[in-house]
């Protein structure tokens, strides 16, 4: 993507975990960000352990490793390994569904308890397209006359924003369907990650960088740090090379 001739700038792999109630549009947000695509009736699982997407900013290039819940949030079955070494989390709710914000708050406190202390958390109210007053279609709609003229919106921007400010979270409202603000969220996160937790990307595997962050988990050591982790992928490739 970026030209090879540019002066070297900070380039780092970052693990991003998605959290939030089922059907708030977590996977759709990722799909919009990664493929600039939207599917109306998306299957709840995504088929890969994580997706990757680069985010190029003037000062740094961040390669996001985006971990979806794979549906595990539904039955209390997200494992500690899911949060492990996550440098950032996207906690998503549905602005048309107040209970999804309550769930999001649960996830935020869970992250504050379980994840790395320096984790950057973004609170994202999705389905903004359902809130916007759609003048052409909305004639006579039930919500048409409500005070904020907010379509199906059921969570006030100000309310969620106040909570986010209180907890020190980034806050955005997005629409995975129209793409509104989606790029913005990821760019804001890419900007917000403290330089000290970024490190140059290691190897072709990509994972080594993500797993190798110091200060892992809740105060543990630094598994996967340089000079510690054994790269099996290299071994495999070397072997295949020999066999040819």
């Amino acid at each position: 993507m970026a030209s090879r001739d540019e002066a070297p700038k900070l380039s780092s792999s970052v693990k991003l975990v998605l959290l939030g109630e089922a059907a708030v549009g977590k996977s759709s947000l990722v799909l919009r960000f990664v493929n600039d695509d939207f599917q109306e009736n998306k299957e709840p699982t995504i088929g890969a352990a994580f997706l990757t997407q680069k985010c190029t900013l003037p000062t740094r290039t961040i390669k996001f490793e985006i971990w979806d819940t794979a549906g595990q949030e539904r039955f209390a079955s997200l494992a500690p390994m899911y949060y492990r070494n996550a440098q950032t989390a996207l906690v998503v709710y549905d602005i048309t569904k107040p209970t999804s914000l309550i769930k999001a708050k649960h996830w935020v406190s869970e992250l504050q308890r379980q994840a790395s202390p320096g984790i950057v958390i973004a609170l994202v109210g999705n389905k903004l397209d359902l809130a916007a007053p759609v003048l052409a279609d909305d004639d006579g709609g039930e919500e048409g006359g409500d005070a904020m003229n907010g379509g199906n919106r059921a969570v006030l921007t100000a309310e969620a924003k106040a909570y986010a400010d209180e907890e020190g979270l980034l806050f955005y409202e997005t629409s995975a369907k129209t793409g509104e603000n989606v790029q913005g969220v990821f760019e804001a996160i890419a900007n917000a990650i403290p330089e000290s937790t970024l490190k140059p990307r290691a190897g072709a595997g990509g994972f080594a960088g993500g797993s190798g962050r110091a200060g892992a988990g809740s105060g543990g050591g630094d598994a996967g740090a340089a000079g510690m982790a054994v790269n099996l992928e290299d071994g495999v490739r070397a072997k295949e090379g020999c066999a040819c």
Partner: protein
Amino acid sequence: MVDFSDTPPLPSTDWDVLISGTGIKQSLLAVALSRAGKSILQLDKNSYYGGSAAAFYSLSEADAWATRVNNGDEVGFTNAVVSNVGERGGSGRGYTLSLAPHLVYWHSGFLGMLREADLTDGFSWLAVGSWWVCLTEEEVAVPATGAGSAGIGLAEAGVKVAKLASAAGKKRAGWNKGRKKEPVAEAAVGGGGESAVEKKVTGEDGETTLRRVDNFREVPCTFEDVAWSKDLTDKDRGQLGEFLRFVMKYSDPTEQKCARIFEENRQTSLQTFLSTTFPIPPFITTSISSLTLFPSPPSAIPLEQALPRLAGHFTSLGKITDVRSSAALTIAYGGSAELCQVLSRAAAVAGGINVLGRGVTLLSSNNKESNGTRKLQAQLASGETIYTDWAIGEATDLAKEVKRASGKTTARGIYIIETDMSWLFERKYKDEGITPATAVAVIPSSQAAGGAPIYIIARSAATGECPRGQCLLHAFTESSYEDMNTAIDKLLRTCSPLSKILYSLQYTVDTLGREGVGEVEDGAVLLEPVTQDITLQDEVLEESLAIYERIMGTREGFMEVSEEIRRMKEEMEE
């Protein structure tokens, strides 16, 4: 471990396969069968993954488990003893106490399978360093008994081997090659006491010293150790070299003589075999025996069990990139506990459903035609009833009777140490690019006692399992808790100042009965109880493969990623 105190209903009551439990085999099958297109429901009665291979992420979680053990709520575990020596703040977070800190040999089928399944990049793999055996000067001074003295009926075999050795022996000089008679000027280190480890002397001719800290002596494993270490006499070196050659050849059908010697000595103990057929001093036998990781003394390990383990060790040695003195790996953040979580996630990614905190309370055949055509029905703790063609799990997870065997029990212990014991984790060779995060220390019981050795698997903070500056010791033995504590104490005494234990959890693992495992009724498959091996054994993989074959009708495609997903991943790699 997230409890939002609601129990949402399952998305369906109709499943191809119900897997109860989230241990290694269960999770492996969940991935394999999900990837093969089966609809999978994987349950666990616990609110955490792993079952008897779980990890606890705070001392309070470990305490809670110990309480459940002592209440009889954890099948297969008894007599948990928690000891809090140091003070701890709050719930004692920042630790990962794993019940399964497994070592995985480079050449194991398990690792090969994970690589083919495209799953190895889900972990941080760390190197396992040297084995250290505690031997006193007196024990080291005991010479080899020689073929004549003890070898009743085996002396002949010894002669045969000697002949075989000299027949194959053009290469025999290999073990002595490069070693010159004059000793390398020995730097007198260790006297100052700052560095506990005697500096390894590597002369220009490659001569090396096996590392030693007090009575803890490195086990000679690598080619360099055996061929060049001046700690071994030429005679010992020759015998040890021949034995290692035998280890690599015994299962090779073209090596008839080795095969015959093996056949004749299958039931011979490792100790007897080594003291007669390849007469090496007893302390080397003790060292070699420690590589098997069997919690029994060398006099109680039959050759047929020892050789596959030793062969596994030596074929793996030298194969790992950047750390040629290492033979095995371990997974950071809890060993196989982490493996279970990664596999369960892989199952979810492949379309399976994992549910924690919901066990099976009754499993029976589905006789009512009104409930569809599935063979089995299962009642869950949530009150739900589901229908399935297959139900897989350990007896306890399928609400079946657990049979206890009268066999041996193993004592285990997890100790948090307040210092990092860095000498255990130093790189063996300067040119190695990777520092080991795990080491093995073995304290043999005295010859007179004839008891079982105590194995200690040390894990550094690099595993992410304890704060920097500390380390974890996992002990296992067939001996008592007291012997275990004594052994830990011996290891700690090698540190100056003496390292303190901050916390310890000891528990006993029962051997559960193996009768009644397999397909007990149409579609209900009871898994073998998990063995308490410290290495991840290929039997685990084999049992899972056999069950996969029973369900799918073939072993083809086990753990294979679909073409579509593979393409997607490749696109992402750019």
